[in-house]
């Protein structure tokens, strides 16, 4: 059992939830999402994000629109779909429950 692997998997397990949460308040493009996640140290390398975004988009939890940017390539701004919002609400609930459960178990 590799401790680094376990840590990475725990982090990655909540990544999808976190991406949806970050996008709940505001539409963001990939680099901004990355900033949030990296600040929280949820991500070690950026590459991990892209397959996730695509997966979420394919699951119709996200959608994106192109916006021109000043002095750079056009950006993809991601936003939550209705389905995504429902999904997020459910995940919020699950997370809280899970959080409580974990705390209860680990603090015993």
């Amino acid at each position, binding site marked *: 059992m590799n401790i680094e692997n376990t840590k*990475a*998997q725990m982090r*990655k*397990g909540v*990544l*999808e939830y976190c991406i949806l949460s970050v996008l709940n308040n505001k539409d963001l493009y*990939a*680099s901004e999402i*990355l900033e949030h996640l990296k600040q929280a140290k949820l991500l*070690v*390398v*950026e*590459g*991990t994000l*892209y*397959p*996730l*975004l*695509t*997966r979420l*988009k*394919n699951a119709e939890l996200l959608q994106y629109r192109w916006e021109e940017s000043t*002095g*750079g*390539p056009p*950006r*993809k701004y991601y936003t939550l779909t209705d389905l995504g919002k429902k999904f997020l609400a459910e995940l919020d609930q699950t997370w809280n429950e899970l959080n409580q459960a974990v705390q209860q178990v680990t603090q015993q």
Partner: protein
Amino acid sequence: MFYIDEDAYQQLKNYLGAIERSLSSSEGKEEIIADIESRIAELFNEKLKDNKQVINQQDVLSVIQVMGEPEDYRVDEEVFGGDEKQSKSNASSRKLYRDTDNKMLAGVSAGLGHYLGINKNWIRLLFLALSGSGGFGLLLYAILWIGMPEAKTTAQKLEMKGEPINLDTIEKKVKEGYQSVKKNVEEVDLNEVGQKIKNEGKSLGDALSTFITEFFGVITTIVKGFFQILGKLIGLVLITVGSGVLIALLIVFLFMGMIDVHLAKDWGFIYQGFSDYPEWLMHLLLFIAVGIPFFSLLLVGLQMVFNQMSKLHTGVKVGLFALWLLSVVGLIGLGVTQLNSDVVGTQHLEEKNMLFEATTDTLTLDFKRDSKLDMLWEDAYWQDQRTLTPGYDEQGNEILASKKINLSLGLSDTDQIQVAVAKKARGLRYNSALDRAKAVDYEWSLNQDSLVLSDYFTTPSRWKNKGQSVKIGLELPKGTLVKMSERSAEGLEHFWQLNGDRRKNTHLWVVEDQDQLRCLDCE
């Protein structure tokens, strides 16, 4: 838009290619790649802010560090890919790469081994077998070599060694193939097709050029290998010859040391020797002179077979060479002195006279034999009693014995019996020759009315083949009566003409002439 240098471009291309391959199973792969590309572009833009114009390899490396290795893209799929059953197993299915880490030639067999889950050596054997039957294997190998990409990145190596192929993954592969075909048909775009052909043409060119460089690399490896094997074979031969001769020499050398006189009589040709010097010195010099060259042969052989063998210290080498030179010079010196040692021949004379009334008195003559020495000569290998033959005297000292005796009968001018015994020997100088002559031990006696001679002489064993011999000159007045035993007559007939039948026990002889006796009482 930015400028990117050639190496950095290649690296970036490889990186994106690796990511693409590691994402092979996910839907929307192109989209992910596009997103990644735009993110990379963004990162490059940041780098170019401070007056920098060109993206170099350093920049690409730092970007890769930020973005993560291709594996990082894939592990995520494994974690999150639960809703796509097949993707899980497929993500880690094997890909066909050349395994250049375990290569013999170009890693084709090793790569195929990973792909098929077979030990690479079986595949190599198969290639060899196919090559043996008409060169088909070689062609196949070359084609695969061109066709199979080399596993360069960690991701590729992981893919190469992935999980065994099972029904799931095969099914998935088929589906995937179908989907990509469908997709391609749907998105036919002439431009894109043109681009693709161009790209493929380029990559084929690349493949060919890498193939050619690798091909020549392989040729040199083969040639090198051939000479290495040849070298090892030669080395083995050298080791065999060197050690064989050394062992043989050692045995002979040790054996020589053990040879004593008794053994030596059967080995006369060796024991006879030709040296005044101690035998062991000769043998030692011979051993060194012959042994050192073969020893160096052995060393060279060992070095050829085992490359890691440390070479001899130069001092040791020089020492060995000096020792060899010394022994050769010594041998030559011995040989020269030996050749010269027989130059001077001399004799040591012992004389005795005795007044004798020839017509009335009778001289009793006995030619004495030594039965012990006779037995020795019977056993001797070469049977020639005139050669110096090794044996022991009564005191147990080593001696050499010989019957090289010359006995001549002359007529005396006077009334006296004259006996002159000349012991002869040769040597390097007069003195040494005389010493050897004096050392010849010959027993004889003349007293009153009898002369007793030995039919052999002995000499110390340290002087071999020094031309030792004994010459006896016996002068008797004419008409002297000589009485001799049958045995004496037998011995003496080698030297004298004995007229008459001497088969009866004891006869009386009369001196008639030079070397001539006549039997008086023979029938």
